[in-house]
């Protein structure tokens, strides 16, 4: 009886073919001599055969497959849209590079905003003189609307031959000058 209890426990493993040759032989010997165990074995074997032969299928709701495929596709697209770590690093490197170039450009522009330091210095003087004139702190040394007369006045005062333009707009009038 004790062996029958043991065989009943081992029977399912035997049916799955999990035992080695020695254990298999031992179970087969017992089943051939024990009608009770042999009957139980046959019933279990029949049940297993029925399970294997039966096709259990469950109908899925219509549209479920389409819905799953759609969600999978969306997930794929989101993954594609997300920049990878490598891409993010490349973008960061590009931003830093552009910022560096812009910084150098601004530095150069601040240091040499008018092409040369001479131009910058002269523009400062010209702007200052203009402001002084507006404040009436820089009086005209010659007051004349005659261009030739103004040029003559400058002749011995500047070390170049002054060429003065006139203006097409007759509302622009020459007032004079100074050095």
């Amino acid at each position: 009886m004790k062996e029958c209890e043991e065989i009943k426990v081992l029977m399912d493993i035997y049916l799955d073919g999990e035992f080695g040759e020695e254990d298999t032989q031992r179970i087969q010997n017992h089943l051939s001599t024990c009608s009770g165990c042999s009957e139980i074995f046959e019933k279990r074997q029949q049940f297993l055969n029925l399970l294997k032969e039966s096709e259990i299928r469950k109908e899925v709701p219509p549209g479920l497959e389409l819905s799953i495929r759609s969600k999978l596709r969306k997930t794929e697209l989101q993954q594609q849209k997300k920049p990878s770590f490598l891409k993010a690093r490349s973008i960061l490197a590009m931003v830093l590079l552009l910022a560096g170039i812009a910084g150098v450009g601004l530095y150069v522009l601040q240091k040499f905003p008018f092409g040369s330091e001479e131009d910058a210095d002269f523009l400062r003087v010209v702007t200052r003189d203009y402001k002084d004139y507006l404040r009436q702190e820089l009086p005209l040394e010659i007051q004349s609307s005659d261009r030739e007369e103004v040029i003559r006045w400058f002749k011995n005062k500047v070390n170049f031959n002054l060429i003065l333009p006139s203006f097409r707009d007759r509302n622009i009038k020459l007032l004079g000058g100074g050095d």
Partner: protein
Amino acid sequence: MAFVIYELNGNPISLAVTRAWRPKIEETAGNTPEDIDFDFYHMNGYTGVYWNYRGLVYYLVSDLPEKVNIHQLLDWSAS
């Protein structure tokens, strides 16, 4: 430096002239007015324009309330 003042409708226009110091500019001494390149600048709230012509550098500053491109009204025919 020659400092010359013009006036448009009561608004002073300053034209400063000096000799060009850069050889590059000296070489362009024979330029015609049509070849002039104007450079604009902004300093201390004033907008100006400067250019080179026949070995001289011109700096024009104005404080006109309306936007007038004075340099476009220059007439070099008598120079």
